[in-house]
């Protein structure tokens, strides 16, 4: 989603965009470090290091360029955001990730479903979690039984 609102007359350094520039530089540094310390593999004329070094070099340049644009405030203006919903959804994804292999697909995904709905303002959780689990259970039956996809089973899935 690009934001085409042009920057207003008062351009100030964009701190968040400066952070982006720093992150890009860090990514480039990690690639250089990791490539420089790698060993093993056979040596060829153009070894496994050439491409990573080129990419990290370009990322450094882009990082500096980003820094300049950020300093001049050239980045598109950003609308104010609410972070509550983001935390709910990220939390839901994290919960599913951690619970998946212990409680099975349906329960873990049901929690993700309810947390996402909560992020969009739908409550209460004691209603949405069962809905989510029921829906995920149906999805599990279709995909694990019908399409032979290997989805982790838990107590609920072992019932059938």
């Amino acid at each position, binding site marked *: 989603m690009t934001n085409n609102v042009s920057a207003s007359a008062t351009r100030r350094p964009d701190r968040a965009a400066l952070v982006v520039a720093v992150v890009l530089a860090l990514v480039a540094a990690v*690639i250089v470090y990791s490539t420089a310390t790698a060993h093993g593999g056979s040596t060829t004329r153009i070894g496994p290091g050439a491409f990573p070094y080129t990419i990290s070099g370009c990322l450094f340049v882009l990082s500096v360029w980003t820094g300049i644009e950020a300093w001049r405030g050239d980045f598109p203006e*950003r609308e104010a955001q609410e972070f509550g919903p*983001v935390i709910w959804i990220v939390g839901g994804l994290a919960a599913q990730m951690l619970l998946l292999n212990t409680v099975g697909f349906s329960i873990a995904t049901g929690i993700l479903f309810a947390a*996402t709905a909560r992020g969009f303002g739908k409550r209460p959780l004691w209603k949405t979690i069962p809905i*989510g689990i029921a829906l995920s259970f149906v999805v599990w039956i279709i995909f694990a039984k019908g399409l032979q996809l290997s989805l982790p089973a838990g107590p609920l899935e072992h019932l059938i």
Partner: protein
Amino acid sequence: MDTFTLLAHGFLVALEPMNLFYALVGVTLGTAVGVLPGIGPALTVALLLPVTYKLDPAGSLIMFAGIYYGGMYGGSTTSILLNTPGESASIVTALEGNKMARAGRGGPALATAAIGSFVAGLIATLGLALIAPTIVKFALSFGPAEYFALMILAFMTVSAAFGDSTLRGLTALFLGLALGLVGIDLQTGQARLAFGIPDLLDGVEVTTLAVALFAIGETLSVAAARYGGDEKIEPVKGSVWMNREDWSRSWKPWLRGTIIGFPIGAMPAGGAEIGTFLSYSVEKQLAKKPEEFGHGAIEGVAGPEAANNASAAGTLVPLLTLGLPTTATAAIMLAGFQQFGLQPGPLLFATNPQIVWGLIASLLVANFMLLVLNLPMIGLWVRLLSIPRHWLYAGILVFATLGTIGANPSTFELGMLLAFGVMGYILRRFGYPIAPVVVGLILGPMAEQQLRRALAISQGDVTVLVGSPIAIILLVLAVCAVVVPLILRARGKGKVLSQLAANED
């Protein structure tokens, strides 16, 4: 064998009852998912990839063809009935189509979009069948140096040429290229950027990245936006059929849209948007009633919608003949091929003609099915549009994670999905385009292979990269793709380019 014999063989594959069934499932699922607001064709294809995991290659690709065309159709329905287009290529359709729907002419708008898409899909797919063997013959003479130059050109057009910032396009591309480095180096067997984590040795999955960036990133940014939303679904009143005037005003835009859209899609230029905008302005200039534009002119739906579908078929030209994805959708389709160990490109036409031609034939079959299915099922699609947002996005995330879990049910893979999802949100927040990240991930390792192969053959002599006229032309075009937009933007003409942004598709 000439093209038509090959195509006839393709139809023998496509018309097998099981394959017809796969195509039907594909178009139905593709349309149903594509209709959902906020889901473009790229995400449709990525979300539905797991459905095809357990099929044989031919059946899977046939279902894929249906999903792709169905997703394109679904998007136009969304943009006509709801003023938030499901895919950026449908923005133009929304301009006139939504106005028509408000004026109670939603039926004919949907009909001209559907029939226009059919006409364009038919002509463009036949164009694909006709042009492919020629390009394949040409491409067989390409060496690694030419392929490398071609990929550089694709990188630059996808990232830098369009969109509102060269810097952000290039940054997105290089992030994708950096992610493409992760894993075992194919030529020397050395692990790169794996940090000793076994899960990373296989590299980053294209589908994981695409689903995370598109589905999770989009969900997060919609949830975070303080947007009350006045999304109003326009009811379809009256007949869905077009009257005589509608027909006479539609058929020329369909054909013109096809002629504009197909070459743009077929060139490694990326994005269906350019064609739709061009078609819109052409129709506006040629219209007998230009005053209707902006108030629901049927030409403004017919032309761009045809251009949209023609260029979608056009993107399959570089994908199938050269193995070169120029859009995020094509990148995911390439991943779909690779899961069966198939590498699209000139050799695939020689080694697996039944798959390639079966796929092309099923595109035609899918196109026909959509025409038959779409108008009668409008009522169902409208009902899908009215799903409340909280259930819609909750469902999207269930299916987004389902794909990753189905491919690899590990905590680590889900962690990557989450991390890339957050990255997708941040990219959107700062106005970075998404497609170059996905294209960079899949094309980066391929470009590196070609580069090192070229240099191995030349024994390290880098002049081999500019050793042939074709390679030189391609590299010059690549430089132009970066420099010309920079100059245009510097001279204040960037508005047009940012309108042509190839973002979602």
